[in-house]
């Protein structure tokens, strides 16, 4: 016992055994900043490298110069991509898919979450858990069965969905709807029950409660879910790679890979530029709606 005390006293001679709150806080802050800076460097490295590379010519990229510096900056990669109809088509496909998927997701998730959170019906709790379990099945497990299903569907009905960009409108919601429903169930559950009862007493029916009370009050949660759905459909790679092949049906991530890599020739400058431009829309959306996103994801931890 005494030995231990002595050891501690020697180990930390400048610090009292019971540090004051402000001293503890200062240390905690130092450590958190240290790790924050570390993570920031780690995660910002790739995009910075992309930006640097996108400003270089192919010759400079393959030259053995310092890869972290641009000696002859050029915008030719940007000009070429933005004037190529193909890249703009990928962009348009991605935008169409994402916007439609977000719309479809919200149209399903909001009423579903409302029903599961508020209308206590037989099996609603099991159903809510089921929704979440659906989300746990990885897409790597599903893309082959899904491909087969669409092929069979084509054989039976003659309606061709494979190799059309709109096949993704059917597939993506299987990823977005469960998760969005789940976070919105949590958000809706944090809204006091008296609020819908008050609306009920005021003469509102369920539809009116949903549209005139719930959606406005739960807007932060809904926006968080929207951002999530958008990000997932914008960045999805495996499904479009498996389900679409024609150049005019491709979305951005797949399009960049298939059109800018010819055999073993990598057009690095344009790949980097394309990826950078492709990352812009989610980035812009995050920047504007960040506060809502955080408010939405942390809701339920404390009363919203």
């Amino acid at each position: 016992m005494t030995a231990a005390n002595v050891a501690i006293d020697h180990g930390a001679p400048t610090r009292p055994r019971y540090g004051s709150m402000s001293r503890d806080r200062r240390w905690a802050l130092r450590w958190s900043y240290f790790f924050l800076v570390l993570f920031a460097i780690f995660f910002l490295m790739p995009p910075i490298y992309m930006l640097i590379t996108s400003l270089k010519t192919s010759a400079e990229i393959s030259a053995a110069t310092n890869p972290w510096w641009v000696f002859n900056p050029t915008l030719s990669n940007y000009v070429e991509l933005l004037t190529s109809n193909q890249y703009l088509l990928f962009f348009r496909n991605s935008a169409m898919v994402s916007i439609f998927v977000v719309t479809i997701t919200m149209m399903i998730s909001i009423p579903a979450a409302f029903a599961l959170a508020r209308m206590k019906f037989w099996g609603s709790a099991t159903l809510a858990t089921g929704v979440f379990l659906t989300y746990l099945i990885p897409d790597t497990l599903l893309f082959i069965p899904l491909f087969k299903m669409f092929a069979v569907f084509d054989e039976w009905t003659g309606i061709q969905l494979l190799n059309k960009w709109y096949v993704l409108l059917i597939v993506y919601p299987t990823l977005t709807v469960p998760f969005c429903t789940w976070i919105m169930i949590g958000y809706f559950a944090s809204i006091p029950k008296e609020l819908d009862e008050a609306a009920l007493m005021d003469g509102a029916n369920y539809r009116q409660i949903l549209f005139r009370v719930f959606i406005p009050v739960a807007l932060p949660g809904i926006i968080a879910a929207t951002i999530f759905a958008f990000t997932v459909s914008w960045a999805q790679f495996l499904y479009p790679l498996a389900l679409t092949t024609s150049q005019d049906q491709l979305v951005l991530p797949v399009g960049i890979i298939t059109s800018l890599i010819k055999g073993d020739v990598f057009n690095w400058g344009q790949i980097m530029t394309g990826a950078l431009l492709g990352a812009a829309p989610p980035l812009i959306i995050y920047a504007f709606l960040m506060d809502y996103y955080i408010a939405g994801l942390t809701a339920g931890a404390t009363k919203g």
Partner: protein
Amino acid sequence: MAQVTLRKVVKYYDEVEAVSAIDLDIADKEFVVLVGPSGCGKSTTLRMIAGLEEITGGEIAVDGEVVNDVPPKDRDMAMVFQNYALYPHMTVYQNMSFGLRLKKYPKAEIDKRVQEAARILDIKELLDRKPRQLSGGQRQRVAMGRAIVRNPKVFLFDEPLSNLDAKLRVQMRTEIKRVHQKVRTTTVYVTHDQVEAMTLADRVVVMNRGRIEQIGAPNFLYHSPATRFVAGFIGSPAMNFIPCRLEQAGEGLNVRLSDTIAFAVPTERVQRYRPYIGKELTFGIRPEHLTEAKTNGSKNYATFDAAIEVVEPMGMETMVFFTIDRTEVCGRVDPNAGARVNATMMIAASLDNMHLIDNSSGRVL
């Protein structure tokens, strides 16, 4: 303009009986307060009247029409909740007009009603604010305003003052009474605070364990409680309960509290109490009927010596505590009566205001 009738209303939550077969008639324009400890079924009863809770058995009727299966929105009742439940995204004006807007009232009519309600509640200058910019008392007013503008058949209040601080609660209590005197709507009000119940109600319904213990005007309940529960629940500080037994004393009866203290039962009660000689009984008396000995108006009073243990001066009166046969008893004496700790004081019990409770049934005899 509505009477509300409850006939053998029962509510089960799974296996648990929350409300068991209660009967209640609420007259038009009456202010009825349901009061009782938490878990007594008062809120459940209110919510069944509102239609927010399904009824397991029995029936609820408004103006003679059974409303068991009528959804809340069609019952034409307005409710004020404990946590106000204001729509956070709407202004005060929008909050108050929401119900009318849903029913597609003309704009001019809505405006007239909202302005009128705002005038009654003195919240005219708050109409453009959002709920989060209001204090607790203001939110409570808005919640009431939302009920008033609807001009409903029935007002329902679910512990509306519980979230307010003590001072504001008293203020809002008066406010609610004033509003009811102005708008005269049938009102059902739930509270666990017996003072609120006493001050607001035309009739108080005391509930306990899902049953109605007693219904009556506040003063009637206070002076003639039907059961030990009501006697103990209504009134603050609470009534003293002292174990006792009845003894024959010549023509009359004595109620014996301890070896040394026994009171002669007032002659008009002797007949009523006689069958209970020898049974387990409790003597009930309110603190204000145990005062310093002096000629205090009542002809039936008995005096005894009490060793004062605690003295609590309240300003307009002083509470004294002493023990009768191991039971702590509270008396209420004049501040100038000279009550001192560890001193003996002559206490007078007003026997016209005594109660005798049968321990086996809990009923006041």
